[in-house]
């Protein structure tokens, strides 16, 4: 790969890869390391990829495997699949949607189970399809569907909860805004 091609690849993918890494590793330093490591692995092994359309999927897969490898050195991943709720929570109320920024989203992701953060991050990053998520995370399609489902449910709960709390903080006595102004 020519130097320019490598740079084009980095320019195109470093941001989504970093965001995915951050959603997994939770610290900027670890996310940057994982992203760098992914491109270093690419530089060594890119000749193995014959189908250039698979580059994006390969990069995300490699990053995720590196993350798991590092994680497993520290502790064995224990996967517990919680039961699906009887009724899925409704989408986040529209009045909150325009207030969602990356800070709120990342803090909600941060509180979620690790095994749900990965599919959810991929879903929202560059519109990765459930089939690609299945390939990247090396999970059966059915598992990806159910994890996405649970992940969205968890995320909805957390976002709605955060905004409800902030509503309470804004109006601690449950009075109206005109009450507060007076």
């Amino acid at each position, binding site marked *: *790969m*020519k*130097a*320019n091609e*490598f*740079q084009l690849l*980095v*320019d195109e993918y*470093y*941001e*989504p890869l*970093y*965001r995915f890494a*951050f959603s997994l590793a939770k610290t*900027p330093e670890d996310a*940057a390391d994982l*992203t*760098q490591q992914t*491109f*270093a692995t690419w*530089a060594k092994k890119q*000749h193995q990829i014959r189908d250039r359309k698979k580059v994006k999927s390969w990069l995300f897969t490699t990053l995720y495997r590196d993350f798991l490898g590092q994680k497993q050195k520290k502790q064995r991943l224990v996967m517990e699949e919680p039961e*699906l709720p009887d*009724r*899925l929570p*409704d*989408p*986040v109320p*529209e009045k909150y*949607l*325009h207030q*969602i*920024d*990356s800070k*709120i*989203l*990342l803090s909600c992701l941060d509180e979620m189970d690790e095994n749900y953060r990965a599919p959810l*991050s991929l*879903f*929202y*990053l*560059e*519109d990765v*399809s*459930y089939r690609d998520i299945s390939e990247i995370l090396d999970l059966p399609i059915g598992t*990806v*569907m*159910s994890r*996405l*489902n649970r992940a*969205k449910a968890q*995320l*909805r709960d957390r976002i709605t909860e955060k905004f409800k709390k902030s509503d309470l903080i804004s109006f601690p006595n449950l009075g109206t805004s005109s009450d507060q102004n007076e």
Partner: protein
Amino acid sequence: MNKQLVKETLSAFRHGLDDPEDPVFQEALAEVEKDPELQKWQQQAILEDQALRRAFNRSPAPKDLPEKIYAQHQSAKILSFPSHKQTFSAVAVAVILVAALFIFIKVDGPASSLTAEEFVSSTFALESGGHTDLDFISSDLDEKIRWLADSNAPTGWELPESFQVAVASGCSKVHIKNHPVSMVCYRLPEGPMAHIYVIKRDALSQATPPGEVHYDQSGDFSSARWCDGKFYYIAIAQAPRESLAGLFE
């Protein structure tokens, strides 16, 4: 398919993309078509996805991360033959270059006569063969100069002022026909890396007099050569000649 199952299935649905063609979603979408309550739910879910996707993709990534990745890449393997498709021609070139290395580059023994052309061909041989690992990594030019001086490599040379726009990432000392040569790695403003080789001018038997910069292009590599009263320089980059020439304007 009940409403719960429709919602679960459509959790993985991406509005506006090619998912409607996916058989997995078709039954659920058909149910939505028939049910106003599900239609309202789906509309909310689409708005939610859009808001979350927007928020997610606005989370900041470090601006200097690409630079770190490039530097790491260049440090690991700078300007090497990358593609298996080029293997055949690369092997032929490599045979010639290795021969050139054996002829011109010896670590032991007294320094022998070296012409400017031999110096240039030897530096190309180093680049093409990937023998360009950096011995000392630092973006601080003064630190690099100290390291080169400690390593008995040529110092005291001066690069054109225009080089200040390039970032130096490391350096090495190499020998060509037992003459010490300083090699400094720079990132060009447009992105690619360039290696500058500097040798004392009096080490060369036929050095051209100080004057203009001479450019060459050889395959993927371009070079710029020049000299001043004391030193002879060659800059080589795996980049178009224009990228290199930009440094001298």
